[in-house]
């Protein structure tokens, strides 16, 4: 007989696949920890290039998140609140980078911003600016891939927020911009924070678009995921250490932000 197990209240048909799911998600991380060369961690960590890659990763992911906030929050507002025509088309376009393979995204960026690209040629000829294979390219690639996560999260929070508060603000003399700053944004702050964390984590782990559009130059475009992949081919132990660092940084950031921002108002709106 299938009865809920005493104490847990989880029916067996759900319990077994759920357990498998947990194992599937957790085992690789456990494997990483088990196989880690704990004894020579110190020399590996101080090896040349590791610090550079980590610094570049943190910097570019943070800049990409800031850019995403600057463009993504207004975009989410337009999607959730405005009455412009073709909003559903706009929403579909925004989510394209979510389903697009990152490598394809990298190629697309290259076609637009490369020296022979639509915009890139003009930038090069007018201002002598070359984007591909620079740190700027890393940031652009990460923003392209990660911003939709923020937009979707913030749009969801905006739709869930009670729009009548905005009516109240209007009757109290607040124009739409003031209402956005003093009422809408504070109301959806937990959603914005959750979206920013998702966005940052996605940017930190970005690989495909980055290597396609920005290349793999240590010090300027080689981020941690790229360093991990390359290390795996010549020195698996170094790859392990780098992976551990990436894991530790991601977890630490998540936990920190969870306490600071997301904990106060309960579960993050994602």
């Amino acid at each position, binding site marked *: 007989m299938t009865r809920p197990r005493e104490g847990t209240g989880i029916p067996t048909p759900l319990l077994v696949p759920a357990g498998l799911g947990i194992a599937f998600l957790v085992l690789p991380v456990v494997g990483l920890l088990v196989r880690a060369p704990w004894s020579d961690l110190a020399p590996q960590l101080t090896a040349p290039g590791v610090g550079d890659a980590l610094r570049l990763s943190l910097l570019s992911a943070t800049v990409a998140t800031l850019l995403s906030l600057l463009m993504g929050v207004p975009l989410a507002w337009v999607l959730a609140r405005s009455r412009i025509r073709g909003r559903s088309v706009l929403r579909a376009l925004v989510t394209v980078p979510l389903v697009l393979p990152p490598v394809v995204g990298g190629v697309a960026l290259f076609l637009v911003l490369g020296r022979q690209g639509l915009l890139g040629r003009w930038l090069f000829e007018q201002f002598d600016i070359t984007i591909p294979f620079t740190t700027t390219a890393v940031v652009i690639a990460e923003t392209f891939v990660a911003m939709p996560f923020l937009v979707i999260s913030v749009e969801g929070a905006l739709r869930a927020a*009670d729009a*009548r*508060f905005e*009516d*109240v*603000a*209007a*009757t*109290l*003399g*607040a*124009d*739409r911009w*003031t*209402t956005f700053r*003093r*009422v809408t944004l*504070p*109301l959806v*702050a937990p959603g914005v924070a959750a979206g920013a964390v998702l966005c940052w984590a996605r940017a930190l782990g970005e690989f495909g678009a980055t290597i396609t559009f920005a290349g793999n130059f240590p010090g300027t475009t080689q981020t941690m995921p790229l360093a991990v992949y390359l290390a795996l081919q010549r020195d698996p132990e170094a790859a392990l250490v780098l992976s551990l660092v990436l894991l530790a940084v991601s977890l630490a950031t998540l936990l920190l932000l969870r306490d600071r921002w997301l904990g106060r108002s309960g579960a993050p709106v994602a």
Partner: protein
Amino acid sequence: MSLSARVLVRRGSLALDVEMDVADGEVLAVLGPNGAGKSTLLRVLAGLLPADGGRVTVDGHPWDDVRTRTHLPAHRRSQGVVFQDALLFPHLTVGENVAFGLRTRGMRKAARVEAAAGWLARVGLAGLADQRPGQLSGGQAQRAALARALVGDPALLLLDEPLSALDARTRLTVRAELRRHLAEFAGSTVLVTHDPVDAMALADRVVVVENGRVVQAGTPAEVNRRPRTDYVARLVGLSLLPGTGTGRIVRLDSGGEVAVAEEAAGRVFAAVRPESVALYLARPDGSPRNVWPATLVGATPHGATVRCELAGEVPLVADVTATAFAELGLVPGAPVWATVKASEVAVYAR
């Protein structure tokens, strides 16, 4: 006239066409069933919804005029609005909520904190400025919302079902306080409600809106005494019997006759109060001239009495004491005789 408006809105099945004038210091109640268009009307007055036709003029300034394409946006109207749920901003303190309208108008912090504290004291919430809205009871939140609406000294105060989210007991006290604040308020007030008690207790004049149209307008006492539609009659607890008067007899449109005390002529309403109707198991002899057979179709407790709905040639509502109800042994479907003295029937022209 301080507020003068004619509002036309067509939305789906709703065709709203309402005209109103409200003087300075006057409170106008817009009474009507759900879906009558009351809230739509209020949103147009507040500038939150564009009208399809008509105009809104406050203190001589055009806020809306569809013909000249004038539309003053909500945030530039000198108004205060109180919604059904207090809708205090959850991310601000109670004091910051009350001061919100002063802040958007550029008042300095010290001045607006003082003004907010003053208004909080006036609505009986002194010392609660630093609380979060979530810490307030429903009645306190609605008082704070009233303070927030009034703190900017608006020309027009709009109240959208301000008491209907409160429990019965709180409603009683908040209604009494609201009455006091409305009496002190110098501008015009429009109160939207489906509760006749709110309208009667708070308003100087009442307009009844059904299906987007004004079906009756007058003082609360007039509306209460002489309802013109079934909806209003039911609200004020009267049985409304439309008919044609000839001498001291009103021939009802639905058949049957009602004897009245005064001469009546032409198309009239006969209105009967539930407490004027007496019920008997057998046909009574003697004085009353109005005696009708009827069937009890429903009975609900109503204070110390039982409100009985009667079907028959003359449909009536009767209030009988619980004791009498028990003694008569009434059950739904029971045949009864209903009597009303001619002098207890109000008659007025349709």
